[in-house]
């Protein structure tokens, strides 16, 4: 991977100017050791003595009345401990909302085991508890359900109908509007309208879900292991659902084999294992198998947009009017209406838009429930918005790059407040120089030269093209996060955060920030995350928030510890704190840096509770700090793609791909590049390969890794990454913006544009993923 990075970001406040020793360095990860040696602790690796295995029996039908369940044969099997049906869990409330609660969604919440009705293939209808996984599966196979089939709703764009007795398929409509849309359309030089769809796909981490619960009667604590992402919220809700005090429930995170939005939400199975551990008084382990995962864990992305734009003669946007249909699947889970809300709020992206109206029809279908997947609502709307921009350019005979330049919000317009909200906060684009990044990306890709070379190749009969897409991400969702930094008597540092890690390198990033602020080797910092027993509050890891929120809190806490250490040392050394600094964990005089005076561990010892120095003060070289934010930060970027289409088979080969991304400040550029490269591979999956397909009865067709096509090493080309730090965020001390989702955001958009270009037919691509058979049809139509 080639690197291209400017490191002229100013020094973070509170630290001396000059090059940073730790922040901004591509240091090796702290996480790697155990993972490379096979010593990780993933959910399925957690075991307790006397544990039983849970196996979930799932609905074989997409929609039907659940008449009865016969578990007698299963219960009679040796090794079976219990079998539960909906009747056994009737007292447990359904899975609650965490985000974007909209009135009217409550009746669509999911019970932990179905009662009366099944609504999608894969819905839990019974739980079997047995001595081991093999027996549990044998017994689950013997549980038989009598279900009266009902017709399945499968098209969210179909006219609304009745989903449940007295309840429609349309749970809500997400509406946002500003400006005079009607007037803009009346005054328009041209109106461009498109009908675009994105296929159903999702995060599909390589580790399936898993949960191990155990009740420790001696301490009266219920523990849940194998958790991810949102430990504190999940802890609070689990406690409420099963009727225990919050302090009597603790969640633990080990290693997580990828999150991507899917892992760590509160699912029915999490509640079932907790209930099992309490009722059976034995630890209960559940490990999802891959087939279950593909029908039971959150799906995402499926939307259809009917979008119209009004533009003036120069191609400037006057208004956008968008109606879209969000295919939610059979239940509304923890995310409420969030994905539809984000799609509606963030669709305008990087462009100046005087008037905007959107109606997002949030519809239920008899498919697996949907929620977030990396760049939720943005992968979809970047595809839609950038398709629209290309269509406008084609309509007016303008160069697509020039059209974007005319519409991009200027640097001098920042911060730019758009009168809409998303995720419950106003959209205020905090900083950015969009034009500059576009220019750098074009230069780096040699856009002009590429165009010439492609024209040449096309003249020689090849089907090749290039496309570009611009986007704005969002990151650092507040409102708050806290971190506690403590130095022990050996000089080692413990950093406790309410954040979580889903494998991105959170520990390393937080340790680097802490090390920079404190003046200590980052390898001496132990990061504790994802544990409710170590810190009272936390907002977890999602929405690219950790580096911004927990990173800022880490920075503040580490600076506080630094100040305490210097103050104590100054007393000891009879000097002022200003005359001292810390390097490599040792105090030294700024004037005589070659003479290390005392170690941080010495100071920690002197700050113990029995030290005379601490009389009347709170002991310990430790500080907890909180960082608050009312607004998100908005990183931005461009994707540039060049590809070749095999005219005869319709196969697409991506020849070159560039992601240019401004994230304000890169704490560890190597990890940022990793996020972008991995995000790109997932975006490519959604653009060309991955789709959850269903037949006419609502039977899922993508239930194995042979049918759900995750790109392998042979399909994913190397990606070029340009990390820019032109626009540090003014909203946090480090200037950082989250880097997790920019690699995924605009892949569908850029690939679609490049395919159009190769076909020489603007607007040819209207749907993702672009399967070879679709491409073959487009080629045939183009030839005609």
């Amino acid at each position, binding site marked *: *991977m080639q690197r291209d990075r400017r490191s002229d970001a100013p020094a973070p406040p509170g630290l001396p100017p000059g090059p940073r020793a730790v922040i901004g360095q591509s240091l*090796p*990860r702290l*996480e*790697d*050791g155990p*993972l*490379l*040696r*096979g*010593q*990780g*602790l*993933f959910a*399925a*690796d957690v*075991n307790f003595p006397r544990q039983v295995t849970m196996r979930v029996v799932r609905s074989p039908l997409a929609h039907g009345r659940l008449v009865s369940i016969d578990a007698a044969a299963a219960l009679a099997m040796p090794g079976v401990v219990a079998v539960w049906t909906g009747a056994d869990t009737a007292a447990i409330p359904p899975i609650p909302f965490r985000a974007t609660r909209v009135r009217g969604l409550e009746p669509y919440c999911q019970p932990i085991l179905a009662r009366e009705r099944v609504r999608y293939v894969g819905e839990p209808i019974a739980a079997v508890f047995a001595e*081991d*996984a*093999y027996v549990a599966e044998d017994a689950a196979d013997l549980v038989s359900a009598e279900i009266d089939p009902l017709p399945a709703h499968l098209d969210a764009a179909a006219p609304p109908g009745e989903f449940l007795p007295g309840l429609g398929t349309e749970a809500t409509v997400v509406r946002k509007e500003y400006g005079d849309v009607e007037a803009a359309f009346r005054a328009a030089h041209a109106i461009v309208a498109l009908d675009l769809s994105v296929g159903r796909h999702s*995060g*599909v*981490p*390589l*580790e*399936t879900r898993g949960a191990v619960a155990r009740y420790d009667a001696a301490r009266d604590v219920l523990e849940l292991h194998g958790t991810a992402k949102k430990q504190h919220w999940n802890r609070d809700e689990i406690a409420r659902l099963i009727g225990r005090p919050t302090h009597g429930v603790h969640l633990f995170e080990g*290693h*997580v*084999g*990828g999150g*991507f939005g899917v892992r760590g939400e509160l699912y029915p199975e999490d509640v079932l294992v907790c209930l099992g551990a309490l009722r059976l008084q034995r630890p209960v382990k559940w490990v999802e*198998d*891959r087939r279950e995962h593909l029908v039971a864990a959150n799906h995402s992305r499926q939307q259809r947009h009917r979008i119209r734009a009004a533009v003036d003669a120069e191609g400037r946007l006057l208004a956008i009017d968008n109606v879209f249909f969000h295919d939610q699947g059979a239940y509304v889970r923890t995310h409420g209406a969030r994905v539809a809300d984000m799609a509606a709020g963030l669709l305008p992206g990087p462009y100046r838009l005087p008037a905007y109206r959107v109606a997002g029809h949030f519809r239920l279908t008899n498919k697996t429930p949907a929620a977030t997947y990396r760049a939720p609502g943005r992968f979809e709307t970047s595809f839609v918005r950038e398709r629209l921009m290309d269509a406008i350019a084609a309509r007016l005979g303008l160069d697509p790059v020039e059209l974007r330049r005319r519409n991009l919000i200027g640097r001098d317009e920042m911060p730019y407040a758009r009168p809409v909200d998303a995720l419950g906060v106003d959209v205020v684009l905090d900083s950015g120089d969009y034009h500059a990044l576009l220019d750098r990306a074009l230069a780096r890709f040699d856009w002009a030269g590429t165009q010439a070379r492609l024209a040449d190749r096309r003249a020689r009969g090849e089907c090749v093209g290039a496309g570009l897409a611009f986007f704005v991400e969002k990151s650092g969702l507040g409102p708050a996060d806290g971190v506690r930094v403590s130095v022990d008597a050996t000089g080692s540092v413990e950093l406790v955060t309410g954040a979580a890690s*889903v*494998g*991105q*390198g959170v520990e390393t990033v937080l340790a680097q920030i802490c090390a920079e602020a404190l003046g200590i080797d980052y390898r001496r910092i132990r990061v504790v995350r994802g544990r409710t027993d170590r810190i009272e509050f936390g907002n977890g890891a999602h929405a690219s928030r950790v580096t911004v929120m927990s990173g800022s809190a880490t920075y503040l806490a580490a600076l506080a510890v630094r100040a305490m250490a210097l103050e104590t040392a100054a007393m000891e050394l009879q000097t002022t704190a200003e005359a001292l600094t810390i390097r490599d964990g040792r105090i030294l005089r700024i004037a005589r840096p070659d003479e290390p005076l005392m170690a941080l561990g010495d100071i920690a010892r002197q700050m113990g509770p029995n030290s005379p120095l601490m009389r009347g003060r709170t002991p310990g070289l430790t500080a907890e700090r909180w960082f608050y934010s009312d607004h998100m930060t908005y990183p931005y970027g461009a994707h540039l793609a060049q590809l070749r289409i095999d005219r005869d088979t319709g196969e697409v080969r991506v020849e070159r791909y560039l992601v240019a991304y401004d994230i304000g400040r890169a704490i560890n550029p*190597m*990890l940022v*590049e*990793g996020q972008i*490269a*991995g*995000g*790109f*591979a*997932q975006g490519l999956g959604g653009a060309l390969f991955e789709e959850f397909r269903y037949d006419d009865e609502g039977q899922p067709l993508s239930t*194995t*890794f*042979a049918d759900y096509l*995750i790109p*392998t*090493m*042979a399909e*994913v080309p*190397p*990606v070029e990454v340009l990390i820019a730090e032109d626009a540090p965020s003014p909203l946090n001390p480090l200037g950082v913006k989250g880097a997790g989702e920019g*690699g995924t955001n605009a892949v569908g958009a850029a690939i679609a544009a490049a395919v159009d270009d190769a076909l020489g037919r603007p607007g040819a691509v209207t749907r993702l993923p672009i399967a070879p058979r679709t491409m073959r049809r487009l080629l045939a139509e183009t030839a005609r």
Partner: protein
Amino acid sequence: MSDGGCASRSIAVTVNGSVCRAEAPVRLTLSDFLRQTLHLTGTHLGCEHGVCGACTVLVDGRAMRSCLMLAVQADGHQVTTIEGLAAPDGSLHPLQAAFCRHHGLQCGFCTPGLLTTLVEFLKDCPDPTAAEIREAISGNICRCTGYDSIVAATIEAARALRGDGTTP
């Protein structure tokens, strides 16, 4: 072999150099034998139907999917798992070290299967091109990295294993 076949059998498998004897139900997969019976949980299960490669181990030096073998089939054979890659003194195998340097892993769930596959591959093909590496591990799905860092790490490890050039 008894005439009626057996439901369970006592087996002896040499795992990472030491002989492990255990009673194994005949339907127990090799992967579950390693993970559950021997508590070697470094071998991961990503699909249990032979597509993802996370469960790859070396059987008599050859990379195989342990979810597609029965434990009884490993009776009398040599199995090497991720736990057996580092040197006895604990120092990392050149592949492990290169994965760390090149950020060839994020969540690390695919890593054991990739490393075991690559150990065999680099024995067969000590000086591979990037294209050969991509083909060799196209049977290992990684959902996090986008793969390129894995290719870079492999090239560097190959160089180290050949003994030419110094590693940074």
